[in-house]
């Protein structure tokens, strides 16, 4: 039972990890091709393990020696440190300058995984310019002695010149650091080691062929095994070519992205005799020159073989042209990835199955059912996460305000993945059965299992569409550690309560043991019941809301609501510690999940009185999908967000538009004017702001409503604001009582939501309609309480309250109290990636905290660099926030120029797309 639970938890964990990985933030094509290459390498490792098992079984010395040698070479090659000896020579000045600059940039930001950076000159046969990652984030930039001399030569007048040589050095160092940030160096080393080691099989095949010719009665099995592995090696080598090229391409892109625009332009300058045909860039010339510095030895047969198995990626010309042209980091190619991923998963599944069967057969006599179950488990474990990963990567390369939910493409990706998987699995299966290398599951079992994978892939299409696909833009969290209350207790509840309890209940009902899987329909129906109950509790229909017994209510940070036996209660993380909040959420799951399991178990018991066990299980299993479909018909307020225009009323989208306008006004006023005009058109939608009007049971729309009101003010749409006022006032009256906002009856007022509501009243010019001064009084009192007894789980409410009070001439609490309170927060000492830095800078300004301002400087600089290194055209909010934070600190220097250019580009594109959305709808 524990094993099954662990297996399910493992699958759920992998799926959640993949979905939460937010692939839309990742640039280019490296991650998929990296995964594809790694899967292939693992298939080769397993094939070698199978070869050893066959060698032991058949007593084949050739197979044993070859496979063992392959493992040994893989290990040595993987663990070997190719760092050269540190030379006495002084580090070139240009490298020193880059490293010192980066050190300054990274100061105080160990989050990047780079704690220290130093540069050394090395001798020996190490790479020309490279980095070594020592333990604990110590990164060493290594420059080979001759390359150091080469760099100095280029600083002379007969070279590229001191300026270009310095820029090129910066580019190479940034390129190498990009590999560290991509995390591709480990995969690269692993896959390379495996592929090169497997070249031994060429010798193995020759030896096997010779033994067949010269030794009478020799078995053909070694030759067959060697041939299979060589075939696998050739396939993986072809896949590896793409990996090598993509890896360099993405590192080039990241390096170019972080260079100041003037430096990038200098490196991409074209100069030469050609007319009418493009001349090469300075980058291409330098890369070519660097390349030819390596000794041109003809390495002989082995070197050629290695170069064949693990070749250079793209040629220098392609690479340098792409470095200049790939503004978005390379367009994703989801269908190709799906085909490759499907193929690799098929190969890996069958290799793993073969290895397992070979190892198991001498000890146990596997029945077809057991071996088929093993096959199903292996195939599902491998293909489910891989299929979802492929289906998630259909997102476009750039942020788009147009709707980009590519259902059709997801389906195509799923189908291609499945077909590639089925074909490669079938090929290996037929091969293994024909050659009788191991006892494999019978054909009908194999066919059924492969068909079952189609269901898994189909579910993946749905899951990826429902939870994973985003149009980009990114997010910043009000409560950076909200997963402690929202996600972790739910997952823990499923692992520790739902699965074990379902197994116990199924045994009690007599519908099968955990091995027979009778508990799966019970668990599925229980979970679906919980989901539907939650949907009902969030519904706009009062009757449905009343029926729901248990639920996670429609709340967002910092106050989370739960329903337990029709009684709502709330956890306010601005008053409660994270540990207490998590414990309360966990307690809810511990009560809610058994409620549904017991309910479903009783229902199944009643059904067993009428139907046999199998029918009951089938009805429950398929019934769960039917119940799940109820979600589609339960009325909720999210339907108001449908349509190309209204979908942008989402909190994150509004935040992006607001920040983009503010940042573009600094970096590119002309683009900001165009964005302003497009936003003004968009805001004139007659249906606005109905979807964002808060209600007593859902106050969270206050946050996006405030941003919408702010946008109307900033774009000068006073007529629009005038039109909205009546509706906003009416909705605010429903939630403001006693001059504050509370999330439910008998609940204490929430400072966060009260401040947001008061700010809306202020910015929508509704001060006359509400007792505004009294609201400010209450906010002052709540702020005082918050500083006295509250937690430092979030700072947004503090900033908003201080800002509002100051705007109305109220000094608020003593700034020293706020400073002391804020300094106790880890959000200040170690800001998280998805946390607003602009907010912290504003807080430092509001409290005149010079120390905090000083501390934020390097954090903002390093975060900006990180933002540019990630996907600045897609994970936009992060870049915008850093840019606005830098502006707040008065640090819009040369380092921020690259971000400024990107923001200008983004503003131009968003204004064009927004105008198209508006004109398309009208």
């Amino acid at each position: 039972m524990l094993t099954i639970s662990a297996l399910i938890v493992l699958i759920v964990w992998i799926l959640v990890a993949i979905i939460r990985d937010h692939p839309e933030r990742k640039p280019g094509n490296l991650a998929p091709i990296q995964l594809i290459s790694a899967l292939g390498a693992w298939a080769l490792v397993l094939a070698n393990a199978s070869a050893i098992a066959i060698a032991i079984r058949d007593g084949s010395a050739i197979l044993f020696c070859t496979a063992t040698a392959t493992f040994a070479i893989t290990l040595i090659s993987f663990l070997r440190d190719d760092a050269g000896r540190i030379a006495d020579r002084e580090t070139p000045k240009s490298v020193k300058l880059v490293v010192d600059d980066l050190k300054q940039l990274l100061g105080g930001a160990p989050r990047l995984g780079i704690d220290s950076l130093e540069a050394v000159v090395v001798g020996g046969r190490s790479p020309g310019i490279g980095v070594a990652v020592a333990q604990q984030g110590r990164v060493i930039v290594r420059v080979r002695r001759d390359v150091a001399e080469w760099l100095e030569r280029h600083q002379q007048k007969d070279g590229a010149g001191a300026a270009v040589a310095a820029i090129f050095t910066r580019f190479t160092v940034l390129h190498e650091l990009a590999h560290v940030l991509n995390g591709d160096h480990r995969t690269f080393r692993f896959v390379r080691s495996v592929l090169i080691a497997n070249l031994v099989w060429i010798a193995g095949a020759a030896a096997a062929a010779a033994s067949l010719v010269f030794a009478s009665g020799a078995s053909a099995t070694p030759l067959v095994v060697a041939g299979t592995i060589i075939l696998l090696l050739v396939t993986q080598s072809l896949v590896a070519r793409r990996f090598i090229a993509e890896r360099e391409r993405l590192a080039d892109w990241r390096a170019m992205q972080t260079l100041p625009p003037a430096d990038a332009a200098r490196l991409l300058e074209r100069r030469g005799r050609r007319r009418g045909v493009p001349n090469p860039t300075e980058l291409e010339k330098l890369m070519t020159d660097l390349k030819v510095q390596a000794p041109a030895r003809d390495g002989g047969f082995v070197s050629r073989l290695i170069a064949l198995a693990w070749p250079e990626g793209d040629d220098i010309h392609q690479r340098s042209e792409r470095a200049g042209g790939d503004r978005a980091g390379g367009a994703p190619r989801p269908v190709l990835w799906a085909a490759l991923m499907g193929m690799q998963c098929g190969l890996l599944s069958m290799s793993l199955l073969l290895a397992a069967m070979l190892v198991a057969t001498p000890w146990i006599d596997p029945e077809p059912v057991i071996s088929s179950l093993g096959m199903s488990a292996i195939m599902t474990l491998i293909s489910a996460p891989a299929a979802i990963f492929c289906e998630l990567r259909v997102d476009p390369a750039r942020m788009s305000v147009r709707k980009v939910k590519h259902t059709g493409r997801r389906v195509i990706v799923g189908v291609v993945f499945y077909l590639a998987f089925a074909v490669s699995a079938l090929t290996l299966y037929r091969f293994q059965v024909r050659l009788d290398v191991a006892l494999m599951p019978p054909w009908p079992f194999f066919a059924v299992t492969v068909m079952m994978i189609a269901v898994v892939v189909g579910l993946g299409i749905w899951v990826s569409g429902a939870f994973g696909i985003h149009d980009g833009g990114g997010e910043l969290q009000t409560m950076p550690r909200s997963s402690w209350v929202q996600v972790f207790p739910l997952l823990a509840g499923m692992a520790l309560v739902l699965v074990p309890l379902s197994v116990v209940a199924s045994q009690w009902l007599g519908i099968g043991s955990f091995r027979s899987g009778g508990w799966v329909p019970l668990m599925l129906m229980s979970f679906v019941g919980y989901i539907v109950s939650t949907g009902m509790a969030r519904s706009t229909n009062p009757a449905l809301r009343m029926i729901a017994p248990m639920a996670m209510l429609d709340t967002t940070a910092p106050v989370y609501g739960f329903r337990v036996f029709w009684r709502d209660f709330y956890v306010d993380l601005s008053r409660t510690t994270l540990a207490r909040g998590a414990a309360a959420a966990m307690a809810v799951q511990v009560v809610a999940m058994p409620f549904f399991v017991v309910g479903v178990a009783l229902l199944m018991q009643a059904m067993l009185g009428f139907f046999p066990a199998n029918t009951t299980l089938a009805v429950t299993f398929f019934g769960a999908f039917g119940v799940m479909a109820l979600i589609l018909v339960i009325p909720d307020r999210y339907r108001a967000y449908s349509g190309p225009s209204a979908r942008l009323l989402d909190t994150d989208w509004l935040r992006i538009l607001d920040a983009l306008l503010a940042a573009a006004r600094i970096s590119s006023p002309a683009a900001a004017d165009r964005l302003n005009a497009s936003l003004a058109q968009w805001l004139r939608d007659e249906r606005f702001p109905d979807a964002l009007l808060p209600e007593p049971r859902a106050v969270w729309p206050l946050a996006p409503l405030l941003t919408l009101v702010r946008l109307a003010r900033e774009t000068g749409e006073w007529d629009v604001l005038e039109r909205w006022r009546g509706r906003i006032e009416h909705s605010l009256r429903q939630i403001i009582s006693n001059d504050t906002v509370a999330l439910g009856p008998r609940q204490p007022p929430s400072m966060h939501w009260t401040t947001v509501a008061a700010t809306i009243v202020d910015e929508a010019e509704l001060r006359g309609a509400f007792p505004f001064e009294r609201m400010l009084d209450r906010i002052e009192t709540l702020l005082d309480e918050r500083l006295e007894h509250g937690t430092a789980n979030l700072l947004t409410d503090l900033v908003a309250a201080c800002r509002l009070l100051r705007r109305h001439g109220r000094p608020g609490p003593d700034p020293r109290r706020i400073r002391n309170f804020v300094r106790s927060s880890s959000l200040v000492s170690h800001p998280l990636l998805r946390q607003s830095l602009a907010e912290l800078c504003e807080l430092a300004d509001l409290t005149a905290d010079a120390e905090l301002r000083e501390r934020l400087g390097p954090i903002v600089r390093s975060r900006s660099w990180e933002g540019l290194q990630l996907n600045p055209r897609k994970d936009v909010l992060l870049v915008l926030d850093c840019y606005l934070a830098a502006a707040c600190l008065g640090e819009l220097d040369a380092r921020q120029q690259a971000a400024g250019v990107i923001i200008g580009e983004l503003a131009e594109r968003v204004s064009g797309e927004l105008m198209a959305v508006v004109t398309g709808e009208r």
Partner: protein
Amino acid sequence: MTQENTIAARILGELIPELEYAAPVLLERSERGDPLVGTTSPTDLGFETGSVDSVLLELFKSLVPYVRTILGWGVLIVIQGWLSAGRESRHHDELVATLNALIDENGKLRQTVERIAELLTRRDGATVTAGDVVESIAEATYHLGERDGAHSCV
């Protein structure tokens, strides 16, 4: 590197802009009969620059004898003369005119320059004239003259 080789490398670098900086090393290897670029397999965390277009290297190899030929037929002397003249008296147009006059006088030299132009046309996919080649030689000489140690080289 000898004076002639330096000039030849500079001209080759001018004719094939991709190899502007790499030409001296490539010329040295070509003279020795070594392979121009070795067979390599990329290692991790090294700034690996990718492969050099083999067609480009072939073009380089095929241009070397032609460049040597034109240098041998008086162009080298003209370039050396221009480089050793006082900085003030160097005029780019004058150099082009001298080279053109030399080419007009010598039919074989003209043929060689035209052959270079033909090879470049084939590679570029756009017409390269003999005049363009002369311009490139003059440009290469001009850049050599700009160098700080130009006089010591001559």
